[in-house]
């Protein structure tokens, strides 16, 4: 009898505790998984733009039509945090960045120390992006995203493979988002960030930019 009472009590506690679960959990079908994030500073307006690339399934014409949003459209604001928030609001699913492969920036953004460090500080605080996300530079992220639409896989996965295969041949050290976050605090090293160029719709690793 005592055992039954104990079991009932345990079930009562467990049942009560389970009531606390589920309210804030997001189902898988309500999530989207960005594979690449792109940040851009508009050289004329100094506005910061942010957008993401999703897995290839997400980009199928039917799915895009169904969801009614254009995931590649950049959202602009005064800083990275604002642009990020605006972009998240524009999506009809919750973005889960755990699978993010690459963070793409344009050169103007990289040179703007204030905006660049504000982004790192924001990402450090939010902890949304994985620390081992590769970081790349390009002239025009939107043009690169456009070129990525013709690939058989999403641009994030493609760039990850491109960077890693290039590294194997050159023994190059690929900086990650975590490395840049740490360097913001340490200020001891200079990182060579891979520079990606577009030549006749082909994406090439064309040297690096130091930061």
């Amino acid at each position: 009898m005592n055992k039954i009472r104990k079991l009932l009590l345990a079930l009562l506690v467990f049942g009560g505790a389970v009531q606390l679960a589920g309210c804030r959990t997001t189902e898988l079908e309500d999530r989207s998984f960005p594979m690449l994030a792109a940040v851009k500073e508009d050289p004329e307006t100094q506005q910061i733009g942010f957008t993401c690339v999703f897995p290839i399934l997400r980009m199928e014409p039917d799915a895009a039509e169904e969801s009614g949003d254009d995931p590649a459209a950049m959202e602009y604001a005064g800083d990275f945090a604002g642009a990020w928030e605006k972009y998240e609001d524009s999506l009809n699913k919750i973005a889960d960045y755990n699978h993010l492969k690459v963070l793409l920036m344009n050169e103007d953004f990289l040179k703007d120390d204030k905006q660049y460090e504000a982004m790192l500080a924001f990402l450090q605080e939010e902890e949304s992006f994985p620390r081992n996300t590769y970081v790349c530079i390009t002239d025009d992220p939107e043009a690169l995203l456009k070129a990525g639409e013709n690939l058989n896989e999403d641009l994030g996965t493609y760039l990850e493979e491109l960077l890693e295969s290039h590294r194997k041949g050159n023994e190059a050290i690929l900086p990650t988002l975590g490395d840049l976050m740490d360097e913001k605090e340490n200020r001891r090293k200079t990182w060579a960030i891979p520079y990606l160029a577009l030549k006749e719709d082909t994406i090439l690793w064309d040297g690096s930019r130091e930061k």
Partner: protein
Amino acid sequence: MFSNNQKISLRQTFRLFVFDFLGISTLVLPTWLAGTTGVYGFVSILLGGVFGLLYLAYLGWAMNRMQTDLFTHLSGAPAWTQKLLYGYLSASCILTSGFLAAVFTRLVRRNLIREESYALVLILLLAVAGYAVTGGIESRARVYEVLFWFILIPLFLMLLFSLKGVDPEYFRPQAAPGLMNFAKGGYMVFLCFTTLFFILLFPQYVKPESSGKRLVSCVCYAFLCTEGILLILYAVLLGTFGEGALAKMEFPAVTLMSTVQMTGGFLKRLDAIMMGIWFFTLFALLNLNLFYGAKMLEKCTEIPGNKRYAGIVLVLAFLLAMLFEYTDGMTEFFYRFFWYAGAPLYILIPAFAVFMRRKKKSE
């Protein structure tokens, strides 16, 4: 198959203490040390080691004087002394349990189930801890004995793999911190080892032939083993993140485990597996505090009822853990309490206990 006499072997004691020391020290110390002594954090770890060894020698002296465990020794002391000591120690254990439960829950949510309810994770965690507490020290010691190498081998492997990311540049000395900072760093390390105090309560849980000097040297090995792990871990963390970044991280050791890339990449979400290290080590320390919190409370009220007190302690730990999560400055208060009162009292209590009993005898 197993005897059930509420006694544990010296090997189990060694493993129990390694688990108790490892959890919180590997989680919070690297950040504290990087912010206080930076590259020279190794000196603080060694200094803390010296403080710890001195403290252990002092506890050995107290045990020798008492010739038994603290509970039995104090049973002959004046009633007010017992109430005062047990009341304080119980409150201290409950407060520490609340803090540890909050850190544990934060860690689980941050790394495994980000969007899950804090209260739910906390309740389930405390329910499991409560079950372990009522199981007694023997059942817990058996579990830790089995888990010991399952936890330590992956930890060493991960540290080995992470050596690849260590940059010697981060070891280049900067301006040396002042003597006060070294002392502060050493004291911080010592704070994480105040669990040593509980050795005074251990003679009743080990076989008579294993108590005394053998018990002290067993705990001393556990202490030195943890010091060694701390030194290696601090070197890897410093070389990977650099002192500036390390000083701003919440749980750098966990972050390190999530960024280590293993050759072959055959294991995905390795960080979740590695969380097991802190899951079991923090759980061990939480259990120790809950267990002694309940015991002290029982001694303080002098009304028997082990399970009743375990229940009270669990409820209080739950409420405190909620306060730690949702009240600004609560964690700061805990650190200050431990810095200025908790640790100094852990130093004074053994001498006080020895002195009170002597006084009673002479009267």
